[in-house]
C-alpha cells in the first residue's frame, strides 16, 4: 500500500511542480473536493468521498521537506507550507484519519455534512503547515467555524445552543490568540511562528498560549469539549475528537516546548478528566472527558520539553487520534443504530452488536496502554520522560490517571453498553444491530492500526521528530503495566455496584457562562425588546399609517378611480414592511452562516490574489 501511495504522491507532486512554483497544499485538495462534492452525481458520490481524502493523504506522504507557498501580503510574509518532521507526523495522522472518518460516514446522504467535515480537516492541515502566525490564525478560525456545523447537523433542539456555546468559547480563544499575535508582532516585528521564550514569556506569548490551551481543552478552559462532542452527529464526533485538540498540541509543541507550567496543567488535566468520567452517564461525554485526560499527557510532555517527552507527545497524539476515533466510532455506531448514548438506556447489547463491541474493546485496550496496543508504546514515553527528569510526582500521578483510563474506557464503557444490566427499551432493543458495512470496515481498519502501532514500533517511531532510543518492550515495563491494569480491573469488578451509572449530569466549568449568560439575557432582554419594539413601531407609524391615511383621504376625493390602486400599494408596502421586520429579527444562525461564508470567501480571495 505504501508503494502505491508513494507513486500517487509522486504524481501529485509532479502535478504540483508543473505549474511553475505552485506548491499544492494538501488542504487545497480537501477544500476543492469539499466544494465540488454537492455537484458530484449521487452515483459517484461514494467514490468521491473515498478518492479525495486518499489523494490528500497521498499528497502529504509524497511531500518534500522544506518551506513552500510563501506569499507576500501587505508587509507580511505568509508561509503556507512549512514541511518538517514535526508538521509531517501530525499531517500524516490527520490525513489518515480523514480517510477513516469519511469511510465511517460514507452512507450519510447530506453532502453538506461531508463538506463541513473536510473543510474542518483542511483547517487543521493548514494550521499545521502554517509557518507564520497570521496563516495559523486564519486556519485556526476555519477549524472553529466549520466544525460547529458538525454539532448543528445533529438537528436536536439543544444542538443549536450547544453549537453557539462552542462557537462562543472558540471565538473568545481566537480573540486571545489574535491579540497575542498583534502584540507579538508589535514587539518583535516578525510574524514567524517559532518557539517562544519559555523562560521569560511576554504577555503576547501568554495570550497566544491561552488561545492554544483553550483548543487543547486545558481546565478551566475545557468545558466546551464534552459539551460539544457529546452532542455532535454520530460521525461528526469522530472528526471532532481527532483534529481540534491535536492541532493545539502541535501548536504547543512548536511554540512552548519546555514551558514549566504546562507540566502541572497537564497532570491536572489527566486527573480531572478521570474524575468526571466516573460520574458521566453519557458514553460519548465520558469519552470526551477522557480526551481531556489523554491530552493532559501530551501537554505534560510538552511542558517537560526533553527530546523523549516531545517524541512522546507526538507519538501519543498519533496513537490517540486512532484509538479515540475508534472509540467514538464504536459508541457512534450504538448511537446511530439505537439513537441512545446513555448507559442508563443501554446494556446487554453484546447479543446484537458483538463486532462493534470487539472494535470498541480494541480502542479501550489501546487507550489504556495494554501491551501490544498502541497506547503502550506512546504513553509510556511521556511517563518515562517524567521519571528521567526526576519529576517523580508527575510520573506517579500520570500512572494513577492511566489506572483511571482503563477503569472507564477499557471497562466501564464496554461493560455497561454491551453487558451489565439491560436498560434498553423495547424500541432500543429492536433497533440495535450491527451498523452498515462501511462503519464496520472503518472500525476494522482503525483497529488494525491500533494493534499494528503497538506491535511494530518502528512504524511510528521512525516518524517522530527526534531519533528514538526508547524501548517500550522490557520485561519490567510489561510487568508494571499489566499489574496496574489487571489489578485495576479487579477493583472494578469488586466495586461494580458503586460504579452503576446514574441518570444525572455533572456540573462543570461551563456553569458560569451557561447560567451567567442566562442572567445577562434576562437583563438585556427588556431593553433590547424595547428598542426592537420601538423600531418596529417607527416602521409602522412612519411607513404604513401615513400611507393608509393618505389613501383614505384620497379615497374621499375619488373613490372610484384611485381607491383600488392605493389600497393595492398600501398592501404592498405593508407586506414589505413586515418582511423588513422579519429580516431584522431573522434566524441568527442563517445570518451568521451567510456572514461567515462571505467573509471566508473574501479573505481567501484577498490572500490568493494579493
Amino acid at each position, binding site marked *: 500500500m505504501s508503494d502505491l501511495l508513494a507513486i500517487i504522491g509522486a504524481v501529485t507532486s509532479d502535478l504540483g511542480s508543473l505549474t511553475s512554483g505552485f506548491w499544492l497544499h494538501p488542504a487545497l485538495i480537501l477544500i476543492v473536493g469539499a466544494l465540488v462534492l454537492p455537484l458530484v452525481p449521487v452515483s459517484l458520490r461514494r467514490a468521491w468521498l473515498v478518492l479525495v481524502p486518499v489523494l490528500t493523504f497521498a499528497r502529504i506522504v509524497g511531500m518534500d521537506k522544506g518551506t513552500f507557498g510563501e506569499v507576500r501580503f501587505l508587509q507580511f510574509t505568509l508561509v503556507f507550507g512549512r514541511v518538517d518532521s514535526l508538521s509531517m507526523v501530525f499531517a500524516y495522522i490527520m490525513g489518515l484519519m480523514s480517510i477513516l472518518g469519511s469511510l465511517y460516514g460514507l452512507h450519510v446522504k447530506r453532502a453538506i455534512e461531508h463538506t463541513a467535515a473536510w473543510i474542518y480537516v483542511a483547517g487543521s492541515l493548514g494550521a499545521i503547515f502554517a509557518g507564520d502566525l497570521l496563516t495559523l490564525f486564519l486556519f485556526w478560525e476555519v477549524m472553529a467555524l466549520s466544525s460547529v456545523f458538525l454539532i448543528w447537523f445533529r438537528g436536536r433542539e439543544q444542538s443549536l445552543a450547544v453549537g453557539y456555546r462552542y462557537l462562543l468559547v472558540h471565538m473568545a480563544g481566537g480573540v486571545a490568540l489574535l491579540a497575542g499575535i498583534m502584540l507579538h508582532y508589535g514587539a518583535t516585528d516578525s510574524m514567524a511562528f517559532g518557539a517562544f521564550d519559555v523562560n521569560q514569556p511576554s504577555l503576547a506569548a501568554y495570550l497566544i498560549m491561552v488561545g492554544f490551551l483553550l483548543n487543547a481543552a486545558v481546565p478551566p478552559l475545557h468545558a466546551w469539549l464534552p459539551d460539544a462532542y457529546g452532542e455532535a452527529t454520530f460521525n461528526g464526533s469522530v472528526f471532532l475528537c481527532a483534529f481540534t485538540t491535536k492541532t493545539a498540541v502541535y501548536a504547543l509543541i512548536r511554540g512552548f516546548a519546555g514551558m514549566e507550567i504546562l507540566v502541572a496543567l497537564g497532570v491536572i488535566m489527566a486527573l480531572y478528566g478521570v474524575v468526571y468520567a466516573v460520574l458521566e452517564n453519557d458514553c460519548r461525554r465520558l469519552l470526551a472527558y477522557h480526551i481531556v485526560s489523554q491530552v493532559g499527557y501530551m501537554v505534560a510532555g510538552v511542558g517537560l520539553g526533553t527530546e523523549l517527552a516531545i517524541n512522546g507527545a507526538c507519538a501519543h497524539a498519533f496513537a490517540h487520534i486512532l484509538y479515540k476515533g475508534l472509540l467514538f466510532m464504536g459508541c457512534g455506531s450504538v448511537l446511530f443504530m439505537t439513537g441512545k448514548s446513555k448507559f442508563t438506556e443501554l446494556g446487554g447489547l453484546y447479543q446484537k452488536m458483538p463486532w462493534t*463491541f*470487539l472494535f470498541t474493546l480494541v480502542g479501550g485496550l489501546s487507550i489504556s496502554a495494554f501491551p501490544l496496543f498502541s497506547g503502550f508504546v506512546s504513553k509510556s514515553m511521556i511517563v518515562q520522560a517524567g521519571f528521567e527528569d526526576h519529576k517523580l510526582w508527575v510520573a506517579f500521578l500520570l*500512572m494513577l490517571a492511566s489506572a483511571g483510563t482503563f477503569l472507564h474506557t477499557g471497562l466501564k464503557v464496554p461493560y455497561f453498553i454491551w453487558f451489565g444490566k439491560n436498560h434498553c427499551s423495547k424500541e432500543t432493543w429492536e433497533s440495535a444491530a450491527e451498523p452498515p458495512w462501511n462503519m464496520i470496515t472503518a472500525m476494522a481498519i482503525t483497529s488494525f492500526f491500533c494493534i499494528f502501532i503497538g506491535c511494530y514500533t518502528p512504524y511510528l517511531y521512525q516518524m517522530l521528530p527526534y531519533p528514538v532510543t526508547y524501548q517500550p518492550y*522490557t520485561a*519490567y*515495563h510489561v510487568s508494571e503495566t499489566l499489574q496496574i491494569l489487571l489489578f485495576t480491573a479487579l477493583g472494578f469488578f469488586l466495586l461494580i455496584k*458503586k*460504579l452503576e451509572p446514574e441518570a*444525572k449530569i*455533572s456540573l462543570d466549568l461551563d456553569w458560569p457562562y451557561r447560567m451567567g449568560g442566562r442572567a445577562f439575557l434576562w437583563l438585556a432582554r427588556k431593553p433590547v425588546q424595547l428598542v426592537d419594539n420601538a423600531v418596529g413601531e417607527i416602521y409602522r407609524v412612519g411607513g404604513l399609517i401615513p400611507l393608509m391615511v393618505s389613501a383614505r383621504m384620497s379615497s374621499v376625493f375619488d373613490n372610484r378611480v384611485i381607491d383600488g390602486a392605493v389600497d393595492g400599494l398600501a398592501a404592498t408596502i405593508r407586506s414589505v414592511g413586515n418582511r423588513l421586520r422579519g429580516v431584522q429579527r431573522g434566524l441568527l444562525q442563517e445570518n451568521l452562516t451567510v456572514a461567515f461564508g462571505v467573509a471566508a470567501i473574501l479573505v481567501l480571495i484577498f490572500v490568493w490574489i494579493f
Partner: protein
Amino acid sequence: MKLLRFIEFLRRNLKTVIRVCVAVLVVLVLADAIPALVDKHHAHTKVEHLPGFWAAFGFVACVLIVIVSKAFGHAGIMTREDYYDE
C-alpha cells in the same frame, strides 16, 4: 456470528473464566518477585523494587479514584438531568 457464540461460551463458563483471571493475577505478582524474569534495574525508585508494588498501586488507584470521584460527585456536582432546561 462466531464471535457471539464465543462470548456466550465464556458467559456460560463464567466461574472458570474468573478462576483463570485470578490465576493470572497471582502469576503476575509471583513473576514480579523473580529477578530472573523481571529485571528491576529499569525501576526508577526504591519502592518499585517491592514485589507486586504496581499491583497494589493499581488496585489502590482504582479504589481511590472511584471513591473520591463519587464523593466529589455526590457533594453537589451531580444534579438532575434537566438542570439547565428553562
